[in-house]
């Protein structure tokens, strides 16, 4: 079944203490791959049936007013199979 996913990330210019904490923990554990880590939120929204254009528009709106804080965060809405 399809679900609508909203990814919410701090804007790039905003300090991300959590991402930083992860980024500095990785090398201590021997992982060297990361140049930087940002941590955000992922919302998985289950809808009845296949997501419709109208639902997606509603989700966009909800992402803007509820799921994200536009002062410090950006979001992306998409459908995931």
């Amino acid at each position, binding site marked *: 079944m399809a679900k609508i996913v909203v990814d919410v990330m701090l804007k790039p210019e905003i300090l991300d203490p959590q991402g930083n904490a992860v980024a*500095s923990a990785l090398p201590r554990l021997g992982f060297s791959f990361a140049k930087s880590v940002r941590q955000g939120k992922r919302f998985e929204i289950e809808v009845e049936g296949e997501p419709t254009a109208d639902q997606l528009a509603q989700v966009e709106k909800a992402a803007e007013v509820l799921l994200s804080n536009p002062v410090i965060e950006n979001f992306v809405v998409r459908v995931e199979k």
Partner: protein
Amino acid sequence: MSLDTVSIAQSTPDNVQPFAELGLKPDEYARIKEILGRRPTSSELAMYSVMWSEHCSYKSSKVHLKQFGDKAPKSDALLVGIGENAGVVDVGQGYAVTFKIESHNHPSFIEPYQGAATGVGGIVRDILTMGARPIAVMNPLRFGPADAADTRRVLPGIVAGVGGYGNCLGLPNIGGEVVFDETYIGNPLVNALCVGVMKHGDIKLAKAAGAGNLVVLYGAKTGGDGIGGVSVLASETFGSGGSTKRPSVQVGDPFVEKVLIECSLEIFAEDLVVGIQDLGGAGLSCATSELASGGSGGMQVALDKVPLRDPSLSPEEILMSESQERMCAIVEPSKIGRFLEICKKWDVTVTVIGEVTDGDRLEITWNGEVIVNVPPRTVAHEGPVYNRPMAQPAYIDEVNSQKVNVPMPNSAAEIKAAVLKLAGAPNLADKSWVTAQYDKYVQGNTIQAQPDDSGMVRLDETTNLGVAISTDANANWSYLNPYQGAKLALAEAARNIATAGARPLAVTNCLNFGSPEDPGVMWQFAESVRGLADGCLEMGLPVTGGNVSFYNQTGSVAILPTPVIGVLGVIQDVRTRTPMSFTSAGLELYLLGQTQEDLAGSEWAFLHGQRVGQSPTADLAREMRLIELLLEGNAFFNAAHDLSQGGLSAGLTEMVLRHNVGAVISLSNPAVDLLSETPGRVIVAIESNKTSQLQALATKYSIEISKLGTTGGDSLTINESIISLSELREVHTSTFPRLFG
């Protein structure tokens, strides 16, 4: 953008500069040119503009705040007074205590969680900077009406932000206020107080002394946070954006601050710094200029050495950045090795960015080119000073001439309804919804916290020496009479400490007002300062520091004048404190002080939409006698509770609910007795065989006393009105959960 250097500034005197956009007035800009003998570079302009903003320079308030020094009472306790990051007082046994309150109002309106969080972070660094270990925080908060949409937006975030930051630092939150009023819609007040303790010898100052000593920046890396935040956020123009890529909000990292605290305390313990300054508003501009200005004046800084989170920042932006969790220390070269080692232990980023010179100029370079060359004093301490016009606003005479006209309860049913109405009113209802989000136990020294009259912490586990702090403001009274309002708030804060048995010692204050460019607001401000300064002189309490927050207004409507007064007191043995309520039946309840018909500015009048009449007049000599009575009575009082907002009705409600022990009260004039808010009153509970002792004290200090009733039972009974504790509790505790979930 090309680099604007001092030599370019010299050769291009006529370049047009955006001083107005940066908040500088034409004459201020002209003065900068006069000081420098040329146009400022863009970096210098950035520094001056931010340091000469209202927030950093106190240009509108300075002429008034001077009174705190001029009228200062003689105090042997004062070790460091106004002018440093925070004042320091001697509390005995070799201990010194530092405390200060600050505002973070506008940032908390824009981003409630981060605004409140970084407000806590900032005041904690001020305390740390004095060389002290922070030991507790308090947060007086004010919001629009409890059911307003704006309040529902900002309150949960602000409370979570205060808790989120303070809890993570391990600082017990021991008190504060939550008050609602229409005028705070769009202007929530987030005031944050921190208290810290050290030994006398450990006091640190913001001074860059000793040529050749190193300027060391340590803590978080510098990002674009709050660039222009100080001048933009804290001025009338907030809301109009700057560069879109630069965040106007600062984001806090409490973990980094916690580590910074422990790291700094270890550094202090080994005596590795000559001077130290936190980076708060105006960031490096403020820290470098204040440190240099506090010393002999000479300092050289290589700005390109500053570790950046965002490599795209320009030198001007680096100078203005308000990235949190940073400190700047002056370190002798022989001690830098150990300094770096301690930073390494705590995994704290540390960089030597410059050195103290024997000149008298602050010189900042960017990759070798000089971009700032200024006399630091002109940036930090000799900013513009305004004697702004002020005039008593027209509303004063109008409201003072009216009389409060509200329904007064008569029958038993009406009395019960009035008590319940007050018990559930947002301003008086149980605040556990808020305070349960704050850790009050951490550090294991908390003796009193919410909902006690004051917060109290133990300083020494062996001697049981402790301090108590209370913050108070009564904006209704300040609105009716700002001079009296400030005095009354001072008296209330002092009384709140004395009820527990602590002797008031020193004062801090946070003055929250509308626009200083409004002569009426300026008058409210001036009257408040005058009242506080006079009050402190009368009570013998020095003002050790504080903060001014202007421009708290929406359009032409200013917030109520809200001077929040913090009083700190000392208690020799915390084990002897008097609790705010009783735990057993059969005690006698007495009212200290006489009740007049003081309904002006009362909660009862407020609940009926009235803010008219004359505020009470503070009688501070009497307040001081009452304080002495309380301190002496501490030896035999079972409980003592200050009466303030909501009068006797609220005071009794809080006492009976505290330990679920009821009381039977008889009042001759119940309506006025319950609802009036006459200042200088306290309820005490004593064993019945202590009556003559109380009588003797009352005579000695000439304070009127009257018997209210007896403790016991499972209801609050007032004359014929019987209010079961369960009903009272339900009303008192359900307001916040109902409003905020």
